[in-house]
């Protein structure tokens, strides 16, 4: 994560100086000089990994490479001329992927070769033999049931996961024939959990930085639309955070929390209509990783997902109306939102929270030292609260009529267990309003956040309290 942030900062510095093509080939050498030792097998491997991570930051899939000799400067030049984006958001840096051993159970040298041999006795596939007095697992027949680990009295058997595969809730990342991980985009929901889980930083999010800077250089006006979770990202009030975008060169800034206010109003009305017409429950729709999960993996839940658009959609509609010819940039906590932005007719590009922070560092801006902008259009506190788990529920409850009895359920983070729970809801749902956040803690727990979610939540609460309630607002 820290290497990725340093890389982003270096790329942005070159973009600010408008010398990306001249400078980018030097970054791997500057970050891994010959005499400073290496993290991997040698300095050349380290540099190759950095090269491919930079390729992702230039907006490429690593698999786009056709000639290994193509230097980064050529990619930078081509990126500067690029006019098309794709909705493939995540890319695996094969050079960085350590090709972790396939998920398996392993016998350690703690094995005492006991006489009872419970591992061998309980193995349903007869995959355990004893060699030289120690248990040995035959991985050609082992089915990874884990029974041996459970019964070993010496805890001599360990489970060795593949972190990215373990973290992916939908089985979208797996080994290709050469042992390197690859993402199946027909299954992927762009939650970014693999990116966070990989300790080699081998999963990267493709960036739009080159496009954003190119538009700025061409004299186009930039409009930043900041997701509600931004309030928790720095130890600064919202006035300072909004001001920082002006300092970075954005011409207009919108809080997506304003769009969240529209989502709240529409969703509260939809919930009322659905429940009154006899629907057993409705789920939220503001998390694009969740809606992709339903589209790709839980077909039976589709009729229960709210048709209300996301806060970003409504905020972009307003921003596009006000700035028909300008460049709309959504400032995002996660790759799923980048995917959503691609499919939104009004949003041009996405800037992740990490990229925003790195841009400030590259530009020498300390957000704490800025003056606090006077906020012209206050969203509601509830709208800002969309950035954390429970926020949508609180907002919808605030606007729903008191006669509507809402029994809420919160799915705070999607994992395999949560998916099983969601799959059971069409048959039996214990509530009538289900808020689903793919990341634990909500968007403040997204994989592009800068701040620790616990710290971010405190900061977000202050931003919520500083804004008026939606109950008193004309939306």
């Amino acid at each position: 994560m820290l290497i990725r942030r340093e890389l982003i900062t270096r790329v942005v510095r070159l973009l600010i100086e408008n010398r990306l093509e001249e400078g980018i080939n030097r970054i791997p050498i500057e970050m891994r000089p010959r005499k400073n030792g290496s993290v991997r097998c040698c300095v050349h491997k380290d540099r190759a990994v950095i090269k491919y991570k930079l390729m992702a930051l230039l907006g490429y899939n690593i698999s786009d490479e056709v000639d290994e000799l193509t230097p980064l400067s050529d990619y930078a030049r081509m990126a500067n001329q690029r006019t098309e984006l794709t909705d493939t958001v995540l890319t695996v840096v094969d050079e960085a992927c350590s090709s972790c051993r396939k998920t398996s159970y392993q016998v350690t040298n703690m094995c005492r070769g006991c006489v009872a041999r419970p591992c061998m006795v309980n193995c349903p596939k007869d995959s355990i033999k004893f060699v030289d007095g120690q248990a040995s697992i035959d991985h050609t027949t082992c089915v990874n049931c884990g029974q041996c680990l459970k019964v070993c009295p010496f805890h001599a058997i360990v489970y060795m996961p593949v972190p990215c595969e373990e973290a992916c809730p939908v089985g979208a990342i797996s080994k290709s024939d050469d042992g390197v991980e690859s993402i199946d985009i027909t299954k992927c929901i762009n939650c970014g959990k693999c990116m966070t889980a990989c300790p080699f930083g081998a999963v990267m999010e493709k960036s739009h930085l080159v496009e954003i800077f190119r538009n700025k250089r061409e004299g186009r006006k930039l409009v930043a639309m900041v997701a509600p979770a931004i309030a928790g990202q720095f130890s600064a009030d919202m006035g300072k955070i909004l001001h920082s975008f002006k300092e970075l060169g954005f011409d207009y800034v919108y809080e997506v929390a304003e769009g969240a206010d529209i989502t709240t109003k529409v969703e509260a009305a939809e919930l009322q209509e659905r429940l009154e017409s006899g629907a057993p429950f409705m789920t939220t729709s503001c998390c694009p990783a969740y809606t992709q999960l339903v589209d790709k993996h839980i077909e039976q839940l589709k009729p229960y997902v709210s048709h209300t658009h996301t806060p970003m959609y409504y905020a972009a509609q307003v921003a596009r109306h006000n700035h028909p010819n300008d460049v709309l940039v959504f400032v995002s906590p996660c790759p799923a939102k980048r995917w959503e932005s691609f499919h939104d007719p009004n949003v041009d590009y996405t800037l992740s929270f990490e990229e925003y922070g790195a841009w400030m560092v590259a530009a020498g801006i300390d957000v704490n030292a800025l003056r606090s902008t006077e906020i012209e259009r206050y969203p509601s506190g509830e709208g800002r609260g969309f950035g954390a788990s429970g926020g949508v529920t609180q907002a919808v409850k605030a606007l729903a009529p008191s006669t509507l009895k809402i029994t809420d359920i919160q799915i705070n983070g999607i994992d395999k267990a949560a998916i099983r729970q969601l799959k059971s809801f069409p048959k039996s749902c214990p509530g009538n309003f289900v808020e689903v956040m793919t990341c634990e803690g909500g968007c403040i727990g997204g994989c592009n956040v800068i701040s620790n979610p616990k710290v971010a939540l405190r900061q977000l609460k202050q931003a919520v309290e500083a804004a008026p309630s939606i109950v008193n607002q004309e939306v």
Partner: protein
Amino acid sequence: MDDKKIEVLVCSGTLCYLMGGSELQLLSECLPPDLRGMVDVKGSPCLDFCNHPKNGRPPFATINGRCIAQASVSLLIAEIRKEIKG
């Protein structure tokens, strides 16, 4: 008693935050029971260590004015103990 407390300043500058400094905001809550009451933890605007490479890498904090580079909660707790031992 209060003036004998060890003062920890945690940098809240943009670079320190980006490089993981927000974790340090949780230091007060993570202090072991024997150190509670002996340490005064405060956030600070940019301490300006990041502009001088000889100081090391961010995130930065200070313990009684002494600069700690690449600070983490566990490193700060270890350094606070060193400070107490003198």
